[in-house]
């Protein structure tokens, strides 16, 4: 699916918008950063992790990143820091740590 460029949407005239308020693409909210909502971030200890994938299946923000059936990272642009992953981790491999550093794209 081709990217729908909305970078200058605030300059668009009424007839430039897609008809009927349709969003002519899918899943472009991943361009919208909700990581700034977070006060704590999940930290996963790879040594403790058993790759049970519960953090992935329970994440409300689709932010546990999985490849080849393994969690490898968290999507910190979208993770809101709810802490479900840490709370549900049966191996205690995830810890919520206070937010300190700056995030790319978050002001």
């Amino acid at each position: 699916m081709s990217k729908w460029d909305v970078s200058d949407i605030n300059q668009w005239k009424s007839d430039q918008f897609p008809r009927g308020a349709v969003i002519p693409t899918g899943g472009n909210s991943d361009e919208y950063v909700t990581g700034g909502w977070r006060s704590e971030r999940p930290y996963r200890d790879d040594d403790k992790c058993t790759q049970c994938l519960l953090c992935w299946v329970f994440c409300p923000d689709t932010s546990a990143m999985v490849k080849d059936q393994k969690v490898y990272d968290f999507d910190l642009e979208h993770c809101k820091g709810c802490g479900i992953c840490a709370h549900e981790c049966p191996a205690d491999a995830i810890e919520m740590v206070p937010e300190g550093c700056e995030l790319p794209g978050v002001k």
Partner: protein
Amino acid sequence: MPTQKVVATTGNTMVAEAMRQCAPDVVPAYPITPQTTIVEEFAKFVAQGRVHTEYVTVESEHSAMSACVGASAAGARVMTATSSQGLALMWEELHIAAGLRLPIVMANANRALAAPINIHCDHSDIMGARDTGWIIYFAETAQEAYDNTIMALRVAEHPEVMLPAMSTLDGFITTHSIDRAELMDDESVKAFVGDYKPENALLDVENPTTHGSFSGLGGPYFEFKKSQRNAIDRSMAVIKDVGAEWTKLSGRPFDVIEGWGMEDAEYIIVAIGSTAGNARHVAREMRAEGVKAGVLKVRVFRPFPFAEIADAIKDAKAVAVLDRSESFGAEGGPLFLEVRSALYDHDKRPALVNYIYGLGGADVKLELMRRVFSDLVDIADGVIEPGRLVYLGAR
């Protein structure tokens, strides 16, 4: 070459035939008097296999229009029909269909609104929907109901328009009366309406789109409404073009306003729907008596033909605007308000009087039409003051 068959038929049958010939992919519908025979006859066409339509027998009018919205957004050609309380129940969905720019075509059997409950003709239902963003046609006869329905589909689906449209006909008077009408052959109608080519269809699953998004404070809601306004403004030219094309094919004239005796008319009745015929019948008699009577029928109410109407009546001595619905607390009925507003920019304006008539199917007797013309003559002669709003024939 088109071939046309002369038939003895009702307005509802003609609408059902028009729907069949337009070959909608989906018809979600709910029965209500006096629309019922439209959906019954269409169901028969489906049962006979004469149309491929997926006919959805919904459990309410609200769901009828909701399913229309879903089906149209999915990329289907969609038609339905309703009336009165049913149209009122759809109210929320009418706005959504227009806001999502879905070219749904719906017939409405114009009927009074409760309370008290009444199944007969007036325009309370449809006039309540006049600001929902739909294009609105009015038919005087079964023939016009048929022609309007076919034209409405072409206009609605036109890329410059993409708005829902209503083809309305007077409950019982036009829906159920048997009248002489001409039915175009299927192939000619099929060619006339063409294929619908949807954009951003939900069923284009390889290219997902989101319909009905949230556009709150600071979002472009305001801009969406402006583009909707631009679209209905643009529709006027499309309505006329499509009408001219249909006239060429059918031999039947069409315009957004249709006049009789307007060239030199001094006393004019402006009316909508079946009543225009009664007014014309009486105008002919008045002419025979030497009164320069004229009748202006408004065939398209949305978009409203402001310039055309003002131009047609501005030189008259006195004009009566006939409203078959109320706008309680306003200066007059909906048609009157529009006509009066249309004249505002003209230096020369005729005396204008508003008659509310025929509510709940009260019979539009010819004597009442005569009374209106005679009032107009008296008003022009200064014998009586133009009353602002007259309940014509009410006790």
